[in-house]
């Protein structure tokens, strides 16, 4: 009934002829063959560095208003123009990267941790545990997209942490579902059985054998999901939800700037391009990661 929201990445399984090669060697070779992926990685590094060093790079304070210079086009003083309060759009967009990346990484981190734990426990213990956890996952998957986060966020009020929690609540179930399917496909392998026969405690079997062998497709999902969460964050803050006033955020910038779209379209265009660029970067990286791990073998679809 409720399919996972992202296409399920195929599972990489080591082939017999690859045993001679270490997995890190294979990684390096695959990455070297893909210049696009390398450029993506470099751009990601630059983006994160720019976001962290925003106070050093930004020519202006993102909150300083200057009504004399409001709604200006690009100039040498303000390369990307100024917004409806005369704030420098370049500086605000740069600081906006901090907010967006922080929220996206935290949300995906929490959703990933909770989802993989729940999925792994459901698949490993089976029976009543599986039944209970899976129904819970189904329940959360019944809420399409971000509507649940939207309602919750409106009522609990603005705040970066509230935003992260509300978004993570609507994302974790997808991870749990994928992880459960992955663990189910490896839990009856001989090495797991032998570990169990050897008396290894359940916790260690999961940490040492199940998680490392089941996690890859979930990691790909997480990479693709970062772009998705950035879009969701921008959508919510565009409506005026979640981001406290004073913190520069791309969606909120568009939301406030749309009143001035006719006379100063840069208010809307600049942050929109920033969102598009960053989401595009994460989508390309996610696709690249999927291709690297994909050896065109069978797809395991968790149901």
């Amino acid at each position, binding site marked *: *009934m*409720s*399919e996972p*929201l992202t*296409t399920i990445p195929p599972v990489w399984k080591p082939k017999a002829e690859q045993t001679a090669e270490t997995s890190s060697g294979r990684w390096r070779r695959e990455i070297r063959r893909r210049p696009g992926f390398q450029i993506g990685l470099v751009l990601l590094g630059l983006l994160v560095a720019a976001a962290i060093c925003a106070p050093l790079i930004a020519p202006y304070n993102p909150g300083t208003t200057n009504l004399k210079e409001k709604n200006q086009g690009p100039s040498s003083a303000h390369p990307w123009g100024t917004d409806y309060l005369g704030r420098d759009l370049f500086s605000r967009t740069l600081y906006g990267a901090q907010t967006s990346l922080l929220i996206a990484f935290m949300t995906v981190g929490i959703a990933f941790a909770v989802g993989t734990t729940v999925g792994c426990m459901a698949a490993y213990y089976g029976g009543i545990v599986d039944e209970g956890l899976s129904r819970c996952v*189904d*329940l959360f998957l*019944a*809420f*399409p*997209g*971000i*509507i*649940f986060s*939207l*309602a*919750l*966020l*409106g*009522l*609990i*009020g603005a705040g970066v942490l509230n935003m992260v929690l509300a978004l993570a609540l609507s994302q974790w179930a997808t991870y749990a579902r994928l992880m459960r399917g992955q663990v189910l496909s490896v839990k009856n392998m001989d090495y797991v059985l032998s570990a169990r026969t050897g008396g290894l405690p359940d916790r260690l079997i999961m940490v040492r054998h199940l998680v490392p062998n089941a996690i890859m497709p979930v990691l790909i999902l997480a990479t693709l999901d970062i*772009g998705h969460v950035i*879009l969701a964050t*921008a*959508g919510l803050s*565009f*409506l*005026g*939800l979640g981001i406290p006033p004073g913190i520069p955020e791309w*969606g909120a910038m*568009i939301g406030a700037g*749309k009143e001035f*779209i*006719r006379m100063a*379209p840069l208010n*809307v*265009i600049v942050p*929109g391009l920033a*969102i*598009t660029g960053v*989401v*595009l970067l994460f*989508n*390309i990286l996610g696709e690249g990661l999927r291709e690297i791990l994909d050896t065109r073998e069978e797809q395991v679809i968790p149901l």
Partner: protein
Amino acid sequence: MHHYLIKRLAFLVLTIVAASALAFVLLHAVPGGSAETIARHTLVGLEDEVSEQMITEVSDQYDLVDPLWQQYLNWVYRAVRYGDLGTSFVYHEPVTRLLTLALPPTLILAATSMLIVIVAGISLGIYSAVRENRAGDLIVRCATVFSISFPSFWIALMLMLVFSLTLNWLPVTGYGTPAHLVLPALALALHPTAVVVRIVRTSMLETLGQPYITFAVAKGLSFGQIVWNHAVKNALIPVTTVLGVYFGHLLAGAVIIENIFAWPGIGHLLVDGVFSHDIPIVTSCIVVIVTMFLVVNLSVDLLYRIIDPRISYE
């Protein structure tokens, strides 16, 4: 067949009940759901003090005294028995009435977008697969990568800037004529269309690699005949399941798009409700959206089994 249908329907009802319980309890339990906040939003200003008496008054008026589980059971009882989903705190009107007013616009918008998704997604996907690795295919693939990276609300504003504010071809916001429908439907359809194009393309390429296609080529059938009579039908079967999921995305995306274009649908009602802490409205809108999503997915699953007889009923 009947067993399967009954099982699925029972599960559908159970999920809707559980989802409504989750939404109801969570939205009433959060700080913004307290009688104090509601009094602040409906009786006095946001900054003003709320007296004890007001809180009691509000609690009595809106049935907020009982423990949460009992409030929920009361709400479900009245919903099932009388079709009464509560009274809006802000409009002082039955939620059911507001929902019946908001439902048609949302359905019109979602259906139009879905139509664009199906027509554009499938035709571009087939085109892209047939022209694999030629210029047309590359352009379509680049366009899809960009399309899934655009925020849909930003595209909506850009469309508005170009077609309404600059060229004056279409009205800016509002509801009523087909001209009002064009921009919201396009903005909403962009994202799912890109995904459907990619899925159709992959599915087509897989089908075109099947032995029976090679046989059709060997038989001397023309390329058009092979594509239309043999490949497309089989390639589109897996696409149907995805369409149901993306209908859900359309409903969720409509929440933002409706607000941009002042489209008087459920999304508009929901966001207004969220801002004015009108909890009966918020809960009911969510339950309605979840119900639509689940019903469409169930229908798609059943349809899937009709168009592909190879799939058996469990």
